[in-house]
């Protein structure tokens, strides 16, 4: 019988990606309800040493396929490795990060093992009556949420966006030895040849890691309009983000886009500067701990969902706020 909650751990150049660890945390919750175990699957080359860390983040078992064929991500070798593992272990659930790798690999594998796959879930749950995985995801650009089940096929598979699930705590683990699975690769499995790896021109910023985000919308007005936002972000110890309009207009790089077609973020503080709050944008940030909105239009959707909505002109308020916070911090330092 199919059992256990498996998490496909994404690694790039041997570095375990955060989303896999987030999913180990979520898998622990699901596995506790199901009375099953959490199993991490690690695919890569020269990667076995990372297994210990996965035990520390809550895996009950770690399965490793360590093979030079898996050095860089190519769909077919990864799909073959994962299909082999699924065939050997018969998982109940398999979770993936909804990254550009997870969203390439998961559908291919779901197709091969003939099972259902739910993309970009924002919430996972177990149906108390029948033990089915309840996979909830946004659709229609975040306008509606749908809860999806996979009744008749196993494993139940889902991808989950990075930043949606909380990181579990890292603990000492007694176990550190992985189970090694060997996959009979053929040279023909490498059916796509990587000719070159190019870094992205600008250094990528991971806004999902930031505790504070100062985010700009249409009212920012241009690339130079982001300058005051950068200064505010600096005094708050955060990063600058943007709604779609800033990216589409070329004012700021795509890495910083929040929303349905950008990233999902949940910082401690989200400062929405002149963002009216299209539903696609709200979908990417509404779970932030505290939302501060500054907008001329007091009736726009962002002002409605904000924890603190300030009607006003960002061009005037943002620089003044930066100055005031700088002063405030200085005064606190003197007090000490």
């Amino acid at each position, binding site marked *: 019988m199919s059992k256990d909650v498996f998490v496909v751990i994404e690694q*790039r150049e041997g570095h375990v990606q955060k989303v896999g660890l987030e999913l180990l945390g979520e898998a622990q919750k699901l596995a506790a309800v199901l009375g099953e175990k959490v199993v991490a699957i690690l695919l890569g080359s020269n990667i076995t040493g990372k297994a210990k860390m996965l035990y520390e983040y809550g895996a009950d078992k770690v399965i490793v396929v360590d093979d030079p064929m898996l050095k860089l*991500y190519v*769909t077919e070798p990864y799909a073959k490795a994962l299909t082999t593992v699924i065939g050997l272990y018969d998982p109940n659930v398999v979770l993936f990060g909804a990254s*550009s*790798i997870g*969203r*390439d690999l998961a*559908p*291919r594998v*779901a*197709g*091969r093992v*003939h*099972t*259902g*796959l739910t*993309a*970009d879930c924002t919430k996972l749950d177990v149906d108390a009556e029948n033990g089915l995985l309840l996979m909830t995801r946004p*659709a*229609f*650009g975040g*306008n*509606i*949420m*749908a*809860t*999806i*089940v*996979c*009744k*008749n096929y196993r494993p139940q598979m889902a991808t989950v966006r990075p930043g949606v699930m909380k990181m579990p705590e890292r603990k000492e683990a007694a176990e550190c030895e992985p189970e090694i699975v060997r996959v009979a690769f053929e040279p023909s499995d490498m*059916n*796509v*040849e990587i*000719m070159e790896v*190019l870094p*992205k021109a600008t250094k*990528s910023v991971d806004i999902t890691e930031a505790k*504070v985000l100062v985010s700009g919308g249409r009212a920012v007005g241009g690339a130079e309009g982001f300058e005051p936002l950068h200064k505010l972000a600096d005094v708050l110890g955060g990063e600058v983000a943007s709604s779609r309009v800033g990216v589409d207009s070329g004012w700021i790089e795509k890495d910083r886009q929040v929303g*349905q077609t950008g990233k999902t973020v949940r910082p401690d*503080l989200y400062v929405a500067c002149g963002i009216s709050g299209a*539903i*696609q944008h709200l979908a990417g940030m*509404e779970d932030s701990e*505290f939302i*501060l909105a500054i907008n001329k239009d*007091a009736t726009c959707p962002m002002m409605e*969902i904000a924890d*603190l*909505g*300030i*009607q006003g*002109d960002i061009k005037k*308020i943002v620089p*003044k*706020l930066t100055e*005031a*916070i700088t002063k*405030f*911090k200085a005064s606190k330092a003197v007090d000490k």
Partner: protein
Amino acid sequence: MKIAVCIKQVPDTTEVRLDPKTNTLIRDGVPSIINPDDKSGIESALKIKEENPEATVTVVCMGPPQADVALREALAMGCDDAILISGREFGGSDTYATATIIASGLKKVGFDLIITGRQAIDGDTAQVGPQIAEQMKIPQISYAEELKVEGDSVIVKRQFEDCYHIVKAKMPCLVTALSELAKPRYMTVRGIIDAYEKNITVLGFDDLKDMLNPEWIGLNGSPTNVVQSFTKQAKAKGTKLTGLTDDEAVEAIVAKLDELHLI
């Protein structure tokens, strides 16, 4: 070289609004468009055709008869012919079932290069492209930002979060297009006239039934089912301050951030 571009007709989700009273989607008057990533795929195929005059571009769409409009638009952009995959039996299909059906149509005709959009703006799953490739047992390259044909191979600049891979694959293969791949051209008047003279081939269940397992399609053949859909609950109201001077506003923000220990 035969190129197929798979497109989806979608509601323009940027135009979809919520009815604040009923909290339901207002879909009336929302225009249907060719999904943006797919349209970029069409443009990319047409560019390949310009450099390889022997190439043909067939646009393929699964959907209701009204999807005809999307196919006509693609023809008016310059595609050579169009296939509409349509039938009652196909309704309610999830991504697996949809890919099964579309793959059967593509196999029936036979293509060297298949281009799909990365994802559709109504579902956002990005699953149908890779699943078509799996059903056809051909390589896939997703997230294409550049695409060219060299001999019997494609060369693709494949986007990741932190880098690109320049990859090469032998045809037949499938490529999923990002919107960045190519900026779609406009329809020409000549193209629009031609589009209405061109024939759209309709493939129904009977045309494809020998190519697919009827138990794997439609609502009943779909591995996943929607059990519930809902609009998000509005969260508890925060504080809204209007009509303050800039200095009062700054003071209010600093006080709040201090209270929350954020500064």
